[in-house]
C-alpha cells in the first residue's frame, strides 16, 4: 500500500460529496463558533436580566444563537449523512468496476471474504472521511476555545482548570489500559468457544451418528463460566473507570466554581461569568474526545489504503481487433504459465484443430485446468502466446473474445436471480425456448422442471447438488455458442448414463465447434479425435486414446477409484 494512493483516494472520495461537503464545513464552523460563544452570551444575558439593563438585546442574541445552534445541528446531520452516502457509493462503484476488470486475478490476489469486507465495511469508513475531518475540528476547537475563554473571564479560573486537567488525561490513559487487560482474557475464552463449535460442526456427522449432540453442546459451552468471570472482570474495570470519570470531571468543575465563587464575592466577576465559567469547564474537558476523532480519521486512512491496494492492481487489458471467419483453431505458442506454486506449464506448444473434439488428460497437478483457462484468456500466459484463428487473444476485443468462447466448469458458480437467468447468463439475451432446449441438451431440464417454480425458481433459495450445478453450467455454455467450447472436467460428478447422453450432444449437435475437454474419464478420452496427455509441465504425448492406451503410464491416469495395482486377496478378511 502506498500512502500517497490512499490519500489521493480519500480526497477523491470526499470530493464526491460535492457542494454538500462545503455546506458541511460551513455549518460545522458555524456550530463551533456558536457553541463557543454561547456560554459567554448566556452569562451576559443573566447579568443583564439581574441588573435589568439592556435585557432585550442580550435576550434576543441568546435566543438567536440557540436557534442557530439547533437549526445548523440539523442541517449538519443531514448534509453529512448525504455526503457520506455519496462518497461511499462512489467508492463502491469504483471498487466493483475494478474487481470486474481484474477478473479471476482479483480472487487470486485477495480472498473472497477479504474483498467483501473491503467492498462493504471499508468503503463506508473511507466514505466518512470528510465528516471525520470536520469532527476532529469540532472536537478540538471548542475545548481549546473554552480554555481561552476561562482565561478571559479570569486568569485564576483558567489556572485552576489547567492544574486539574492532567488528572483527566491520566484517567483516560488508565481507562485504555484497564479495559484492554481485561479484554484479552475475555476474547481468548470467546475464541476457544468459537473454535470448539466450529470443530463440532465439522464432525457433525460423527456426532449425529453417535447421538452425542447434547454432550457436544456441553463440551462447547464448558468454558462459559470462565467467559462469565472474565466478562465480570471487564465490567468491574469499566465500573471503576466510570466511577472515576463521574468523579474527576465534576470535582474539576467544583474546584473552578469555588475559585469563581471567591472572585464573585470579591466582585471581580459577575454571576453571569460564573455561569459561563461552569459551562466552559465542561466544554474544555471534551478535549479528551479528540483522541477518538483522530483515531477515526486514522481508520479512514487505513481503509482507504486497503481500497487503493485493490485499485493499484493493473486490470486486464483487452484489444480492439475482431476475429476473421474461421473454424476455431487454437494455437499455443511456447506458452509458460504460473500455477499457484511455480510454473505449471513450461514452453508448451500445441495446436487444437478447428472443429475437433480434443481431450486433455493427465495426473492432477499437470496443469489441465490451467491449459483450459489459457485457451479463453481467463489467465494470461507469462510467456508465449495463445492464438484463436490466427489472432493473438490479447489483441481481441473483450466482447469479440467472449462471443467466440464458451466455458463449462467442474464447479460452476451459478449467477443470476432465477435458473433461467443463470442459464442465460452472459453477453446476449436468449429466448426461453432456446434456454429450455439447451437445458434439455445438458440434461438439466428434468430436474429444473421438478423445482417449485420451474425455471423461475430462485437460485439462492433452491439448493442444487454438484452434478446438477454442472449440468446447469453446461447448459449455460451451450447457450453461449461461439466457435470454441472449453469444458473443464464438467462430467466429474455425473453418472455414466447422464455423461453418455451429454457425450452424444458433444459429438452430435455441437460437432461443428472446436471442443477442448479436460477429463479424468477414459470413456470421454476414447470419444475424442485427439488426446492431449499433459505431464511434467508439458505435452507428454498426442494421439488417439486407442493408440495411447498401450502405455501403462497413460492407463494409470484413469483411475476412477484410485485403484492401486497391488495384488489383492479376493475376499480377504471375509472368508475364513
Amino acid at each position, binding site marked *: 500500500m502506498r500512502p500517497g494512493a490512499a490519500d489521493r483516494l480519500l480526497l477523491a472520495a470526499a470530493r464526491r460529496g460535492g457542494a454538500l461537503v462545503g455546506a458541511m464545513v460551513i455549518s460545522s464552523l458555524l456550530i463551533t463558533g456558536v457553541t463557543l460563544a454561547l456560554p459567554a452570551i448566556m452569562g451576559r444575558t443573566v447579568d443583564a436580566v439581574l441588573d435589568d439593563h439592556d435585557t432585550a438585546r442580550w435576550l434576543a442574541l441568546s435566543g438567536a444563537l440557540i436557534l442557530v445552534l439547533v437549526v445548523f445541528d440539523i442541517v449538519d446531520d443531514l448534509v453529512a449523512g448525504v455526503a457520506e452516502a455519496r462518497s461511499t457509493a462512489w467508492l463502491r462503484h469504483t471498487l466493483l468496476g475494478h474487481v*470486474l476488470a481484474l477478473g479471476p486475478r482479483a480472487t487470486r490476489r485477495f480472498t473472497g471474504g477479504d474483498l467483501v469486507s473491503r*467492498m462493504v465495511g471499508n468503503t463506508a469508513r473511507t466514505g466518512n472521511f470528510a465528516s471525520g475531518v470536520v469532527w476532529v475540528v469540532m472536537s478540538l476547537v471548542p475545548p481549546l476555545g473554552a480554555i481561552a475563554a476561562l482565561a478571559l473571564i479570569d486568569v485564576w479560573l483558567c489556572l485552576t482548570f489547567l492544574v486539574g486537567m492532567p488528572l483527566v488525561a491520566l484517567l483516560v490513559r488508565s481507562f485504555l489500559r484497564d479495559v484492554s487487560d481485561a479484554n484479552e482474557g475475555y476474547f481468548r475464552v470467546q475464541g476457544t468457544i468459537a473454535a470448539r463449535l466450529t470443530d463440532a460442526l465439522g464432525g457433525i456427522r460423527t456426532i449425529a451418528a453417535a447421538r452425542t449432540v447434547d454432550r457436544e453442546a456441553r463440551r462447547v459451552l464448558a468454558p462459559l463460566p470462565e467467559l462469565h468471570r472474565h466478562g465480570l472482570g471487564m465490567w468491574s474495570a469499566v465500573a471503576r473507570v466510570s466511577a472515576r470519570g463521574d468523579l474527576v470531571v465534576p470535582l474539576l468543575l467544583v474546584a473552578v466554581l469555588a475559585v469563581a465563587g471567591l472572585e464573585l464575592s470579591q466582585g471581580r466577576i459577575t454571576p453571569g461569568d460564573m455561569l459561563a465559567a461552569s459551562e466552559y469547564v465542561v466544554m474544555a474537558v471534551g478535549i479528551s474526545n479528540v483522541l477518538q476523532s483522530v483515531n477515526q480519521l486514522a481508520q479512514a486512512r487505513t481503509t482507504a489504503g486497503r481500497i487503493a491496494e485493490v485499485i493499484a492492481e493493473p486490470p486486464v487489458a483487452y484489444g480492439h481487433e475482431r476475429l476473421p471467419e474461421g473454424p476455431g483453431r487454437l494455437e499455443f505458442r511456447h506458452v509458460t504459465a504460473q500455477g499457484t506454486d511455480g510454473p505449471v506449464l513450461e514452453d508448451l506448444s500445441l495446436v487444437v484443430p478447428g472443429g475437433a473434439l480434443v481431450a486433455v488428460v493427465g495426473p492432477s497437478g499437470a496443469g489441465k485446468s490451467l491449459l483450459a483457462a489459457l485457451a479463453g484468456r481467463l489467465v494470461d500466459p507469462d510467456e508465449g502466446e495463445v492464438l484463436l484463428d490466427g489472432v493473438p487473444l490479447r489483441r481481441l476485443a473483450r466482447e469479440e473474445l467472449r462471443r467466440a468462447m464458451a466455458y463449462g466448469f467442474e464447479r460452476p458458480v451459478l449467477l443470476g436471480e432465477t435458473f433461467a437467468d443463470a442459464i442465460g447468463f452472459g453477453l446476449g439475451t436468449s429466448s426461453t425456448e432456446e434456454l429450455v432446449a439447451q437445458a434439455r441438451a445438458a440434461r438439466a431440464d428434468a430436474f429444473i422442471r421438478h423445482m417449485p417454480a420451474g425455471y423461475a425458481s430462485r437460485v439462492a433459495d433452491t439448493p442444487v447438488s454438484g452434478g446438477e450445478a454442472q449440468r446447469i453450467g453446461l447448459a449455460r455454455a451451450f447457450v453461449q455458442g461461439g466457435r470454441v467450447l472449453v469444458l473443464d472436467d464438467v462430467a466429474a460428478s455425473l453418472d455414466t448414463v447422464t455423461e453418455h447422453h451429454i457425450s452424444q450432444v458433444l459429438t452430435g449437435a455441437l460437432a461443428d465447434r472446436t471442443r477442448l475437454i479436460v477429463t479424468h474419464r477414459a470413456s470421454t478420452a476414447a*470419444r475424442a479425435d485427439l488426446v492431449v496427455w499433459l505431464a511434467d509441465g508439458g505435452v507428454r504425448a498426442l494421439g488417439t486414446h486407442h493408440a495411447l492406451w498401450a502405455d501403462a503410464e497413460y492407463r494409470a491416469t484413469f483411475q476412477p477409484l484410485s*485403484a492401486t495395482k497391488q495384488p489383492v486377496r479376493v*475376499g480377504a478378511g471375509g472368508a475364513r
Partner: protein
Amino acid sequence: MKARSVRILRSSLSRRRREYRRLVAWSLVQAVPAFLSGWIVARAVDQGFLADRPATGFLWLAALAGAFIVGAWGTRHAMLGLASLIEPFRDELITLVATGTLHRSARLGAPADTAGVARLTEHVERARDAYGAIVLFVQGFVVTAGGVLLGLAGLDPLLLVLVLPPLMIGLALFVAALRAMAARQREVILADERIAETTAALTGGVRDVVACGAEERVRAQTGAQVDAAARAAVSLARLTAVRTAALGISGWVPLLLILLGAPWLVRNGVTAGAILGAVTYVSQALQPALQGFVQGLGSSGLWLLVTVGRMAEIAVDPDRPGAAALEAAEAGTAAPQATDTETAEAGTGAVTGHAPVRPGGARVEARDLTFGYAQSAEPVIRGLNLVLHPGEHLAVVGPSGAGKSTLAALIAGVLEPQSGQVRLDDVPVLAPGDGDDLARHRVLIPQEAYVFTGTLEENLTYLVPGAAPADVEAAVRAVGAAPLVARLGGYDAPLDPRDLSTGERQLVALARALLPAPRLALLDEATCHLDPVAEAVAEEAFARRPGTLIVVAHRISSALRADRILVMDGTRVGLGTHEELIAESALYRDLVGHWGAASASQAPVRTVTPIPTP
C-alpha cells in the same frame, strides 16, 4: 424476527427482576448529583458568594463535591448491577446459538453455514454491548430527568412550566420518529448485507462472470444495489435530522425559555442563584442524559433487535429439514441424478448370497428404501432392497454423487427415508426411544474424522467413556495407530486437531469406532486419507471382528476385500461378488478399470488420425 428477539430479551429481563431492582436502586444513588447540583449551586451563590459569606459558599460547594462522590459510588455499583444483568444474557445467547446450531446441523446431517456461525461471535458481542448501552442510557435518562425535574421544582415550581413542555414535545417527536428510524436503519443494514452477499457471490464466481462476458450485467446489477444502499443511507440521514431536531427541542428550548423567562422570573422573586441553578440543571444534567438516551435507543436498540433476531434465526430449526442437507456430505457433490425411468426401476431384489454367517454381527435389512433431498426432486435411492447376514462384509462402490453416503446414513438411522424401512436384527433403526441403545450397537464413521481439542484418550473413548486402558490399547494397535500415539506423546497428551493430518485424524476415528465392538460398522470413505497399506490394516481390523461391516469404498482394493459388492449409479444398483459383477455390470467394469476385457463394446465413437503438433 422482531417478535422473536423481543421475546428473548423480555424473558431474559423478567428472569432477573432482583438484579434489575438492584440496578434501579443504585442508579437512583447515581442520580443524586443530578438532583442536587443546580440546587446547591443556587444556594452557594445566593447564601454564600453574593451574600458576602464566601465560607458558606465553599461549604455548599463541599456539599456538592460530596454529592458527586456519592454519585460516583452509585455509578460504580450501578455498572456492576448492569453486569449482573448482561453477563447472564450473553451466556444465554451463546448457549442458544451453540446448542441450536448443533441440534439443527445434526438433524440436517451437515454443518449449518459455518461462515454464518463464525459471525455469531461478533453478533453476540454486539448484542451484549447494545443491550448494555440501552439499559444504561434509558435507565440513566429516566433517573436523571426525574432528579432534574424534582430539583427544578425545589428551586421554584415556576421553572417546571418553562422546562417540562418543550422536554415533552421533543421526546414525543423522538418517540414518533423512532419506529420510522428503526425501519430506515434496518434498511441500511439489509442493503449493506445484500451488497455483501452479491459481492461474495461475485468474488466466488468472478471466473464465471468473465468466462460468460457478463461484466456489464454484473456491474449494472450490483451497482443498482450500491445505489439502493446509498438511497437508504440518505433516507436514514433525513430521519437522523429529525432526531437531532427532537434533541434540540427537548434540550435547548428549555434553556432558551429559562433565559427568555428570566426577567419575568426575577420579577416573581426568583433569585440569581436559582437561575444559575436552573441553567446548570438543564445544560449539565438534562442535556447529556438526553443525548445518551436518544442515541442509545436510536442506534443500539435497533442493532440489538437485528442481531438477536439473526441469532434466533440461525439457532432455530429451519422450516424445511433435510433439503440442502447431506448434499455437502456426498463428497462435495451430490445426489439426485436424473436417470432414465426404465433403468431406474431395476432395483435389486433381496439377494440372499452365500456369505458366511458370523455370530455377534447384526442382520441388516433394507426394504423398499427411497430417499430424495426434496419431495419434488428425483430420489437418489429408489426402491432399494438389501439383506446382509450377520457378520457379512459389504463394499459399496459407484461414482461420486451416486448416493453411497446417503445409503450409509439411511442404514445407520441418521437419515429418515421417504419410504421403506431399515431393520437391524429385526428392530427398525428409527424405532422411537432407543436412540442411545442404537448408538452403542452400530457406528458410522464418515469421511471427515471428528477429532476435538482434549486428550487423546478423551478422543478415543468418545463412544465408550471410561473404557479400560487395555481395550483402548488393543483398538489402537488393531487399526495401526500405535506409532501415532507414540508421536503424540501418549494417551494423556493434550491434542489439538490442527496438529494432525487428515489421515491421522482418520486413524483416531477408526480406533474410536472399534472400541465399542459394534454389531454393525459403517465406514463411509473413512480411510480415504490413508495410504493403501494403512487402509488395508485398518479395514482388516474391522473385518476380523465378529460384527457386520459396510464399507463405502474409496479404492477398488477395499472393494476386493469384501464378501459382496453393491454397485450404485444413479438409482440403478447391482449386487454380487467381484467375479459376478465383472461378468454382469458394465459400470463395475468401468470402475474397476477392466478396460481390456470390455474395450470392444466401449470402442471410441469415431477415430481420427492424430494431428501432430507444429
